[in-house]
């Protein structure tokens, strides 16, 4: 059901935890649906220096969280905002169709964290917004 990549990220998740003095916090999902992701980021010089996650959810949700925190490290905010849920799923070698909708929220949590950071900085969002709906297209 899950790719080896998913299982690897599920079994050895990268960047678990919470940055105590985070520059941005993103929380998405709903415990009623069984998936909640919290991503905390540290920003330095317009780049994401650190990202950590905490996730309540299925194997896919945990792997997605792990993968997105890995993908984003060192990226500029603009680059980070371009990471889509679909891109995260692709980086994991794909997800079962059912999981595309509900558990594939990593990029959303990341964006929320960046938005939180920008808000705190009193800045708006950069112009380009990746299609956040795209993740579910092939299910």
């Amino acid at each position, binding site marked *: 059901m*899950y790719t080896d990549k998913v*299982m690897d990220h*599920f*079994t050895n*998740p990268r960047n*678990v935890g*919470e940055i105590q003095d985070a520059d941005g916090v993103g*929380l998405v*999902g*709903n*415990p*009623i*649906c*069984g*998936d*909640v*992701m*919290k991503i905390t980021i540290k920003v330095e010089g317009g780049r994401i220096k650190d990202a950590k996650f*905490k*996730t*309540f*959810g*299925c*194997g896919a*949700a*945990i792997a997605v969280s792990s993968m997105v925190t890995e993908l984003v490290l060192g990226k500029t905010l603009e680059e980070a905002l371009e990471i889509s849920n679909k891109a995260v799923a692709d980086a994991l070698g794909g997800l079962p169709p*059912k999981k595309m909708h*509900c*558990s594939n929220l990593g990029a959303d949590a990341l964006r929320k964290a960046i938005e939180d950071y920008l808000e705190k900085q009193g800045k708006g969002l950069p112009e380009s917004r990746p299609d956040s709906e795209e993740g579910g297209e092939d299910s």
Partner: protein
Amino acid sequence: MKLVYLDNAATTKPRQEVVEAMLPFLGERYGNPSSIYSMARDAKAALDEARGKVAKALCARPEEIIFTGSGTEADNMAIKGVAYANSRRGKHIITSAIEHHAVLDSVKRLEKRGFQATFLPVDSCGMVDPKDVEAAITDDTVLISIMHANNEVGTIQPIETIAHIAKNHGVLFHTDAVQTTGHIPIDVKQLGVDLLSLSGHKFKGPKGVGALWVKKGVKVERYIDGGGQEGNKRAGTENVAGIVGLAVALELSVGELEQETARLTQLRDYLIKGVRERIPHVRLNGHPTKRLPGNTSFCFEFIEGESLLLSLDKVGICGSSGSACTSGSLEPSHVLLAMGLPHEIAHGSLRLSLGHETTPQDIDYVLEMLPGIVSRLRAMSPFGEEVSSDSACPCAQEEHSLVKSHQF
């Protein structure tokens, strides 16, 4: 790696004796029981013998047993077959909210065909209240279907009492005994039911074969139409090997039922006690004592069932979250929700169902591995932080407030 199979409620490993009994019918004894030459009569005789064994195990008559292609098919046939055959008596069906989908979806299908249904609630232990059954009966009620024991939480229902009520009101009564047949004593006369479903693979028989017992005189419309097999009640060339396997498995299970019940109950309670002692924020689902000897069902708060299962699988422990049939779904178990558990707690369910091969060492292994896995997942959970190490089982309200604090 050690393999600890604790998903015996989902399916069981066929016994060696079962496979040996089946093999001739996949080989030299391959005749079609409907044909008339000796080789075919031999297959027919094997079917008759199997029918006799199943009847004996249920304290029923051989001609009351109809073999089917699964427990699910038996449930479909019981519910739709009774409804259609007796629709002149009424078009209202009573069942419970915690039935297996084979029953629930059959009833829902009938709702689309002009029947009415009542889905009775259960209490926090997953128990149906016979008074609710009685109160739901109307002049139009034609069938009541309440499962003998629930597949997820193991609660054993007061079938005799409900059957008595049904009889008093002249309503037919079906029970889905897929989880109990071969596991707790069944005497159809004593239970007082009119129809009873069972499935071979739940008691160490093969998959893809079940049976429906229909009390003599009870009218059931044929569900699978065609040839005259099974006394013209269920068409299709018989799965001779499967039927023979089911019968042998049932005979053996019933033969050792008493010892197995004692052994499993002890192991089960040992597991429950061990889990509760070692892991905080866990609740036992289902009734504390009126439960299947092999069933344990827990909710581990702050974590989600699938990631728990995957983690257990990594160390060779096979369990399930909700029922096997719904484990591919994202919805939490309808059974746990009906018992009043909030969604976020229901998501964290784990069923470990013990069986014939389960040893005390298996349980010790689970007790050794499970606490670490739960801790690790909780450490990953955004809810974990707020959790005090208080090991008292938090009630549903506390959970609700915890969740609300996240403002979702």
